[in-house]
């Protein structure tokens, strides 16, 4: 049994994963995405039974997983899960398909129809780029002038990937959101992320605290994880002021340090446990 940890640079999470592998006496390597060259076609002998994909660059993670899966190497997460989670629109469609409650979402392909859709949805709305982590390029749009300006900037300055407008109802939440960590078929930890900013993300200064995993949170988290294809994911949940719990995003390569300290759950060890299960399944084939 040999596990690879694919990284671009070592964040705390990757160090914890490597330590967990070491502590459990599992043979492992740190693999640097920057140095990799994949060859398509031909039979290659896989060096790893499973690879934890932890690159910070989303494109690298996505395509490395595809190449590894092609070589018969299982990845955590799988290419399909990464592909779905790295695109907010794909995430929304699978959540919808699986009946997982999510904020009302509308998609448009030009500024004029986007503006009409925003007007119809009612202000405020949230506009998100389809790709990109850490709450980057999330915009809250409070009125028509804001919408016009944002759409024009996306259109004029944005590249190809900013020409699909992803528009979402703004969910009035109590100054916090919930992030739950799912590993396989278990919700292993959950935290509140509290911030004075409407984006309750660590990069926007959110503070984490332990959140009790109620039956509702457990069920919703597992449903969201199943919808994107399972694996090790972080599910972002919004508590609407009308009592609804809504899944806003599912992350396939989340930072999880903020989930560990407040809850005391060793999420890194849980990821390693899951990788070993996946590796055992792969070699059992």
């Amino acid at each position, binding site marked *: 049994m040999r596990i690879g940890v694919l990284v671009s640079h070592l964040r705390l999470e990757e160090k914890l994963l490597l330590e967990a592998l070491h502590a459990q006496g599992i043979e492992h390597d740190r693999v640097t*995405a*920057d*140095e*990799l*060259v*994949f*060859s*398509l*076609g*031909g039979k290659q002998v896989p060096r790893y039974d499973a690879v934890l994909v932890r690159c910070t*660059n989303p*494109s*690298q993670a996505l*395509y*490395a997983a*595809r*190449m590894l899966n*092609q070589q018969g190497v299982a990845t955590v997460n799988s290419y399909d899960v990464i*592909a779905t989670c790295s695109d907010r*629109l*794909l995430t*929304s*469609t*699978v959540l*919808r*398909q699986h009946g997982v409650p999510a904020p*009302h*979402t*509308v*998609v*448009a*392909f*030009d500024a*004029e*129809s*986007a503006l*009409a*859709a925003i007007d*119809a949805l009612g202000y405020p709305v949230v506009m998100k780029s389809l*790709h990109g982590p850490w709450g980057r390029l999330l915009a809250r749009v409070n009125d028509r002038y804001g919408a016009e300006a944002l759409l024009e900037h996306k259109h004029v300055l944005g*590249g*190809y*990937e900013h*020409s*699909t407008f992803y528009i979402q109802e703004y969910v009035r939440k109590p100054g916090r959101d919930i992030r739950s960590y799912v590993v396989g078929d278990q919700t292993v930890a959950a935290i509140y992320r509290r911030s004075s900013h409407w984006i309750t993300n660590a990069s926007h200064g959110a503070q984490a605290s332990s959140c009790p995993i109620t039956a509702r949170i457990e069920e919703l988290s597992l449903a969201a994880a199943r919808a994107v294809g399972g694996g090790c994911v972080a599910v972002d949940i919004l508590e609407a002021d009308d009592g609804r719990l809504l899944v806003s995003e599912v992350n396939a390569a989340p930072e999880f340090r903020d989930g560990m300290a407040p809850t005391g759950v060793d999420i890194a060890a849980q990821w390693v446990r899951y990788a070993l299960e996946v590796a055992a399944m792969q070699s059992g084939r």
Partner: protein
Amino acid sequence: MVGVFCSRIRDEEKLIFEALERRKVCFEIADVRHAAFDLEERRNHFGLVLLRCISHSQALYAARILEQNGIDTINPYGVIATCGDKLLTSAALAEHGVPTPRTLVAFTPAAALSAIEELGYPVVLKPLVGSWGRLMCKVNDRQAAEAILEHKEALGNQHGSVFYIQEYVDKPQRDIRVLVAGDEVVYAIYRYSEHWITNTGRGGDASVCALTPELAQLSLAAARAVGGGLLAVDVLEMPDGRLLVSEVNHTPEFHGALKATGMDIAGRIVDYALGLV
């Protein structure tokens, strides 16, 4: 009811509308640029949607949203996702044993440069997403490689850090394009150009290419590898006569083939679509 989702209406789309009319098929044209897709809404009045959007992302997301509502599309979402991305196409072809140019993938300019030197010059660099040969480059030497890699990294956007490197195939100033509809080959044409990029969108000439069993088999295998559907397979002839599949296109233009073959291509496309309903 058949839906035809388009953006700008080209000659190809007009011919498709005419073919539908001749067959007295009830159809509705939707310009995706002027439609907003509410994910909560159930759209199910279409039995089938023919996607003819020029933009790959529009075709891709429209297909996904329609699929979510249980509506069949030509092509299906999974096929568009694979064909719209050259790396995913190459991976699918390789997995199905379809001969393709040797392809390497790297994530940094340094790793890409060593991959290029391993393949040997000239090589071809291609963006993962894009059509009409845009941003494809033939790299003849190390200086060109260094310059292109640096520019790609500095100026590229979403997948700017994924380098797709392919062996250059010394083809006879033409390539072959084969249109596949399901299990059948509709036509094969040569596309000629003085430029190494032999795309009729760049003004190349076209003529009919004899459909040998080898060519037909290869094209059908390529189409199956990406999931099957209505697909244009680009085939390169090696100096030693071997055939390699370079790309598979999910929303083929066919104006060049019309002139060369004189076929009712739109009619064939519509018949294929109606055969699926």
